[in-house]
Each structure stands twice: as C-alpha cells, then as structure tokens.
C-alpha cells in the first residue's frame, strides 16, 4: 500500500475511533506529547495501560468472587482504572468504570458483576482498536513516512 494511503487510512481510522467514542480528546494530548525526542510515547503509554488494566481486572474478578465482597477494595481498583483510562483517552472504558463505581457505591454485587463484564469488554475492544492503529503507524513509519497528526475537528 502506498504510504499516503496508509496515512489516510490511519487518519480515517483514528477519526472513527473518536466518533465511536472509543477515544477522546485526551488521546490527542498524548499524541501531541509524542515528538522526536519521544517517538514512541503513545505506544508506551497505551501498552502500559493494557498491562495495568489487565491486572486490575483480574483483581476485580477475584474480589467480586469472594463470599464477602470488599467493596472498598473494589472501589479503589475501579477508581484507578478510571484514572488511567481517562489518562489515555479511552473514553468508553472510563464510562464503564463510572457505571461500575456507582454499583459499587450501593454495594450491588450483581450490578458490579455486570459492570465488570462491561469494562472488560470495553477494554478488549479498545485494545484491538489500538493495535490496529499502531499497526498502521508502524507501516507508515516503516515506509519512511511520518504519522499524521489528527485534528479533532468535530
């Protein structure tokens, strides 16, 4: 594929992610932080996020599986997940976390379980999206091109 085409694909794809709510403006900020001195910044941060979130999700699963659910702990995990997802701009994940927290506040186990599922799902989805994104970026860079910056016009 031609560089230009790939670049265009990247741009379109990224835009669609925004449209679909997977990403928000924070992601753009991350992208802005990436520069020559820090060329893989976005990639690093996103990778970190997925590592961390996986751990958190595991903990949440275990915690909700206990006979005596420790809601404080759950709240704390969800809070962290919310913070990190919002830091990278993973909007849907963040929203799912907010809903999760609400159920946690009222100590609704069922609700929590449902939300957990949802968060997991969202994470999974956005992870795939990112992977696609990075692949495209890689292709561009491999072709010697530069990754186009996205302008959030809408």
């Amino acid at each position, binding site marked *: 594929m031609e560089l230009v085409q790939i670049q265009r694909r990247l741009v379109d794809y990224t835009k669609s992610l925004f449209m679909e709510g997977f990403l928000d403006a924070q992601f753009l*900020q991350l992208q802005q932080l990436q520069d020559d001195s*820090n060329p893989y910044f976005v990639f690093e941060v996103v990778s970190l996020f997925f590592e961390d979130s996986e751990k958190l999700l595991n903990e949440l699963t275990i915690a909700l599986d206990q006979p005596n659910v420790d809601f404080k702990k759950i709240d*704390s995990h969800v809070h*962290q997940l919310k913070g990190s997802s*919002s830091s990278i701009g993973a909007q849907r994940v963040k929203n799912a976390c907010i809903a999760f927290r609400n159920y946690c506040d009222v100590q609704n186990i069922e609700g929590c379980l449902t939300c957990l599922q949802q968060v997991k799902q969202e994470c999974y989805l956005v992870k795939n999206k990112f992977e696609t994104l990075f692949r495209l970026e890689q292709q561009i860079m491999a072709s010697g091109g530069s990754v186009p910056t996205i302008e959030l016009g809408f």
Partner: protein
Amino acid sequence: MTMEEKLGGSNGEDGGRDRFPIGMRVLAVDDDPICLKVLENLLRKCQYHVTTTNQAITALKMLRENRNRYDLVISDVNMPDMDGFKLLELVGLEMDLPVIMLSAHSDTKLVMKGITHGACDYLLKPVRIEELKNIWQHVVRKKKPDSKDQINASNQDKSRGGTGETGPTSSSSDQKVSKKRKDQSEDEDEEGDDNGHEDPSTQKKPRVVWSVELHRKFVSAVNQLGLEKAVPKKILDLMNVDGLTRENVASHLQKYRLYLKRLSSVATQQANMVAALGSKDPSYLRMGSLDGFGDFRTLTGPGRISSASLSSYQPGGLFGRLNSSAALSLRGISSGVIQSGHSQTLNNPINGFGKIQPAVVPANQNQNGTLFQGIPTSINQLSQNKPTNHFGEFNRGNDPNAFGVATNFQDARVTVGGSSNTLPVSSGNPLLLQSNTQQTQHSGGAFGNQPSSLGVTSLNQEPFDMNVRGSSNFLDHGRCSENWQSAVQLSSFPSNALSASETFSHEQLPSNNLQESISWTSSHLSSSPLDLSSSMANPANLEDSRGNISQVGLNNNVIQNIDYTTKQQWGDSRHDYNGNMNNSFSRGDSLVPASGPMMDQSNVISDKMNDVSLFSQFSGDSTYVVPHLDGEKSAFDTKSRSNDDFLFETKPQNGFNQNSFEPSENIMMSMIKSDQNNETPLMDGEFGFDAYSLGSCI
C-alpha cells in the same frame, strides 16, 4: 516510574530557574503508572524539570533529603502506601512546598479536603497540558514573603529562608508575640525549618492535644523565657515538639496567660504573701505552670514547698514560701508537692501575670506539696497553692503558709491565690498543666496555667503540685503550671481542692487539717478551708488518686490560706478543677464530688486558694496529695494526667476559674470555668489547669 531526573530538557537544575517557570522543578507522585507517565510527559512538555515516583513514601524521602531540589509537588490523592492528603500535610509542614492534588474524583468533599489540608490546587484527571502550564503560579505565590497570602504566611518565610529566627530563637529577642503574623512568617518558617514540623503552613493542622507532657514542656519553655518574654515562636523552639505549630503554641499561651491572670488576681494577696515567703519562685511559678501538672506530686515534694515556701510563705515566694511553711507541714507532703520552689515562682510568675501573689501560691505549693504529701503539708501546700500553678511549686512558696500547715496557709492562700495566678498564668495555657513545670511563671493571670497545674495536677509531680498546681497554678498561673503537674493531680483534686480550699475559708488552713483533710475527704471541707480539702479529699478520688487529695485536704487548708480570694476564682476553677482534679487525681471522681462542697469553699478560697483550692482539692483527696508527693506523683501524674485530660476535657469541671482562663478552650478554662469559675480562682485555676491540661489544649 522511578525518579528520573530531569528531563529531557536542557535546563540544568539551576539553569532553569533563571528562566522560570521554565525549568521549574516538579516532583510528581502517583501510584498509577499510566497517569504518572502521562503526567511526566505533560510536564516535560511544559519545560519543567520533572522527577517522578510512584510511592508517596519515596517522595517524602526525596523531599526530605533535599527540600530545595524541588519547587512544586504534584500528588495523586488515592495512593496505596499513604493517603495523598497526608502527604500533602507533611509536605506543607515540613517543607513548605506548594502541593497540587490530583485525582480522578471531582467530589466536592475531596476538593474541600484538599484545600483544608493545604493544597494549592486540585486538578482532575486526566490532566490537560493547559492546566499544567499554569501551575508555576503556585510557586511564585508561595514564595511571596509573608504573606498572608499563603495560608501560612510562615510558610512563606520558610521558603524564603526565613530570618534567622529559627531555632535558637528562643533566646533571641522576643519575637514579638504581637507580631505574630510577622513572626509567623519568619519565625514560623524558621521554626519550621528548625523544628521541622511546625510549619504553620499546614493549613490545616490537626488539632493539638495539650497533654500533660506537652503542657509541661510548654510551661517550662515559658518559664525559661519569662512570661513577659515568652513568645510563641520561642516557646515553640524551646519545646521542640514535632508537629506543633506556632499557632498552637500561641493559642495555648494565650490561655495560659489568662489563666495566670486569673490566678494572679486571686493571688495578689497571696502573691504578697508568697513573695514574702520566699521566693522560691521561679520554680514556684513554674509550679503553676505545669508543674502543677504532673507534678503535682512533686508539689508535694513538700520539700519543695517547704523549701521555698516554708520559710517565707511570703507571698513572694509564695509557693516557695508556702513550701517553706507549708511545706513544713507539707513537707511531709510536699515532698515536692509544693514545689515550693515554685511558690516563689509562682508568685513571681504570677507577677508576671497577675502577680498572683506568689506568696500565696508558693505557700500553696508547699502546702500542696506537703499537703499532698502528707497532707499535713498539704495545707501548707495548699497555701502554697497559691501558685496553684505550680502546685507543686506553689507549695514552695507557700509552704510556709499553706502548709505551714495552715499556718501560712494564709499566705499560702495568697499564694494560692497567687498560685492561681500562676497557674493559669500560663495564660491560657492549658498547657500549663502540661507544662506546668514550666510555668510557675505563669502565675500571672492566666490561671490558665493553672490549669496546668491543675490539669497538671497530674502533672504535678507532686501531688501537691497538683494541688498547687492546680491551685497554684492557678494561682501562679504560670507557676501553677508547674505545679500543675502536681496540680494535675490536683486537678482531680482541685476540683476538690477547690472545694476544699474553699472550705478552708481561707484561713483555716488548718493545713494540718489538710493533713487530716487529706484524708479528709471532705470532712474538712465543710468546716474549714480544709474542708475543702476534705471535701476534696473526699472525692475519694483524692484519696485514691493517690492520696492526692489528701493533699487536698491539706490544700484545703492551704487553700484557705491561699487566698481564698484567688480561690474564689480559683475556687471556681478549682471546683472545676477539683472536679477535674479529682478526676485527674483521683480520677477525678472523688474530687469532683468533693469539689462540690469544696468548691464552694474553694470559692471562698478561691481567691487564694485557687491554688489552694486545688490543693484543697487535692487535699481533699488528700490521699492524693500525700501519696503523690512522693512516689505517687508519678502515679498521680498519670492519674492526673488522665485527669488532666479529663480535666481539660472536662473543662468545665473545674471551672477553673475559668475566669482566668477562659476562653481558651483550653481546658483549663473550661475547667476552671466550669466550676469554679469564680470562686476559687486558684482553685480553679489550678484545676482549671488541670482541666486544661487534661483536655487537650487543642
């Protein structure tokens, strides 16, 4: 992420400073690695110099290592190893650096919490670069001198490097108490630096509990400096307590002063007496101050009292005198209770304050001391009470009086009264109690010190002290505090004592009675001033307390002597104090009850008695007194301490002469106020002091 220094940026650490805000050095703390990484990069983008860590503890360590390496701290709120707010407070306290809080929560309560803990700003995650671009303003703001703009003006100074006040300041010129603000900034900073934790800057400092120990320190610091010259900053320096702010000290000082004042009014007469007694003073006064507190027992150190007071009960030496005289009798009791030495001081200190009539107090002291000790002395001691403050000390001065076994008690009374002065003098130092020891000086008005004594009663080492302190403290105010120590005991006692003192009706001082009274358990109270003690003693606590009360009994006598005038106030306070004292002493229960009757008496006595009252109270407890004097003290102290706490908390119990103390929420005041309020100035004072000490000076 581990700390990474620096940034990719080019500015060297210092180089950047010149191009501030470029190169501003930021320490970022967040347990979430993603957020931390993002934050770090954002900050770098703003051209700041960034260091990161994902642990609050590490962050603190880094900051402590070199505070000057950073200009600003950004911290997450939710962290596993330490609460973000706690880190915020510590940083503010120790390093006076601007701290920005970061959180994914935008809960109003959290934001409020951040502000109250001293955060310069509260940002929500995800943080945007625009917001970060402006954070340097906080650094500038903080650096502005004194200003009140920062929460803690002092902080600012700190950052500025404050004037040299720090540390050693105590000796240096008085910081002008008045110029609190200024001082604050400077001193505080300085202090903060030196002391390290006192940074006033923390916006929200946790409430300080003026324990007996603390009060004792306070009182001794004040005594060291001299009441007139005691400024918060210096006191703070002297005390060298972590986490204590200048503001805490300032407010406590105020209370102590009031207390002493109260005492002094009562002790005026006593003071004279006390002075005459023999200026044990400073110690005496000290008695008031906190000695009373814990040392109440020490008061008993009749020896104490006696020494000072015995001889001269003269108001001058109030306690000292008291001790001498009273101490004489008390000697037995005083063994320290009266801290006769105090007495003098009481008087004197009181003078400072209100001149509580050192004489009075000292006598008390002794009285108390003795009283407590052997109760017999207590009387003297009681008289010693004067300083109430120092109960312990008072005795000294008073001894002759008070304990003189009542002989001087009159004087003692004065002293007592004086003591009262002294006691509270702490000027609202509820701490007095705590610091009682120091106080003696307080004799001055604020019987507040007294509280120390009173409160101190427990503090007073000598039981008597307590009495004395309580009373004496009150009396002495300042001194009382010392006495307070013993007074503390008194405190429990005081209440009784006060009452007892009151019963003493001044003159009765049958210090001897006290002795009896000490055991009096209120028998005395009614009849004679001693009654107070007796009554006080009754409180049973007294007895229990360690016989503190016995001192009380003595005190009663003493108290009576002590001056009922003071007592009056003191008495009131004493009552309260007694109550408190009792509490403190004996656990205060007995005292208090005794105080009831005693209180009345104490009221009477209160004049002088304030201290006395305390004593009486103590005497009442007599048991209190006596035992304490010696070894009990410690026991008593503890008791008193507890009492103190109690007292303080009870505040109103003693009514410490609340008059004197008053306002300060200090316990003393409350203590004094509660009961006595008026009557036994001393008594209350003393007690009050206890109460004061008891309670947290918060």
